[in-house]
């Protein structure tokens, strides 16, 4: 009985150590706090069309899927550093709106990934009053 107890204690310790090592690896890059306001699109109305983005709900995705161009290795930078044109009608790769919404290009966008992951689920692929824009587009 005592042997079993010791073995199981060892197991617990090993698991804890492994789990700790795992966390250490993942936290090499510190993601910003949740409730990050990532959208700077300027539309017709006075309200901004902001999206609250939580890094924590996207932790299964590799950082560099979204932060795809980085000058400094392992240091993700803000989308708005390169996608500088905040007009919703902007075209080309500078367009912030396009970076978040375009489908069928080489680089993935928020919406294209959501379409792939949550196909047919309006709450996660829809527009106004979806999870992304819960209070509509006023």
């Amino acid at each position, binding site marked *: 009985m005592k042997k079993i107890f010791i073995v199981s204690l060892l197991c617990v310790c090993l698991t804890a150590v492994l789990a700790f090592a795992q966390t250490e690896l993942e936290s090499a890059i510190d993601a910003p706090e949740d409730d990050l306001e990532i959208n700077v699109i300027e539309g017709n109305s006075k309200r901004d069309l902001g999206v609250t983005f939580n890094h924590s709900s996207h932790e299964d995705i590799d950082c560099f899927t979204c932060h795809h161009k980085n000058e400094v290795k392992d240091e993700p930078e803000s989308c708005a550093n390169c996608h500088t044109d905040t007009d919703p009608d902007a075209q080309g790769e500078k367009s912030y709106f396009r970076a978040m919404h375009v489908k069928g290009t080489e680089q993935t966008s928020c919406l294209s990934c959501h379409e792939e992951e949550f196909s047919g689920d309006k709450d996660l692929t829809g*527009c106004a*009053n979806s999870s992304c824009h819960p209070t509509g587009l006023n």
Partner: protein
Amino acid sequence: MSGKSFFVDLSLCTACRGCQVACKQWKNLPAEKTRNVGSHQNPQDLSSKTIRLVRFHEVRDTNGKLQWNFFPEQCRHCIEPPCKYIGNMYCEDGIVQDAKTGAVVMNSRTAGIGDKVTSEELCPYNVPRMDEESGQWFKCDMCLDRVKVGRLPACVQSCPTGTMNFGNREDMLALAEKRLAEVKTTNPDAYLADSESVRVIYLCIAAPEAYNGNLLASVDGSKMVKTAQAKSGVNRRDLLAGRFGSKTKA
């Protein structure tokens, strides 16, 4: 730009479909071949040839009394039009917003969009439709040609009941609030649908799901719950997305 707006008083609509016919006539759109499926709604859905449709829905109210709800559906001419922002990523200025009225208009350049996106991806109300042959997208354009010369849109002109109203946005919002107050004396559950975000303001006398079609931009709570139940159980994603929060709301 405050522009123009419609006020659609659903408490007055008798579903005569005068607006649907007037729209077809003014836009010179052909009839569609349909078959009787046991509803007065005809055709069954919007199309590139039917850009305005009176939807019918039979539903029992809370007292078990049968209600027949009519919903003349059209483009809402959103203040922030998602179709324009999304659609124009795939074509060059195929969707434009008229500076004076705020009308959202699709032109022939929308052929560049084709089937790269679905209607639901373009529009939170699922209104625009693609012509299968050309790939061009169609929807209501507020009868901009009529409005620009001081006329009413064809649907408003034809309405015999006072359901359809059209004018300056401030006036329509004031009329909507006035009618809402009146209707609320007999129907306390009445509400205005998405009045802050769109130029077609519906005064509704029944819950959104008691109408056929997308009255609100929101995700339909009851439908959402049904589809989730149809799938095997509730998964983590559903819970994370908080989709069941809408059940209590609906």
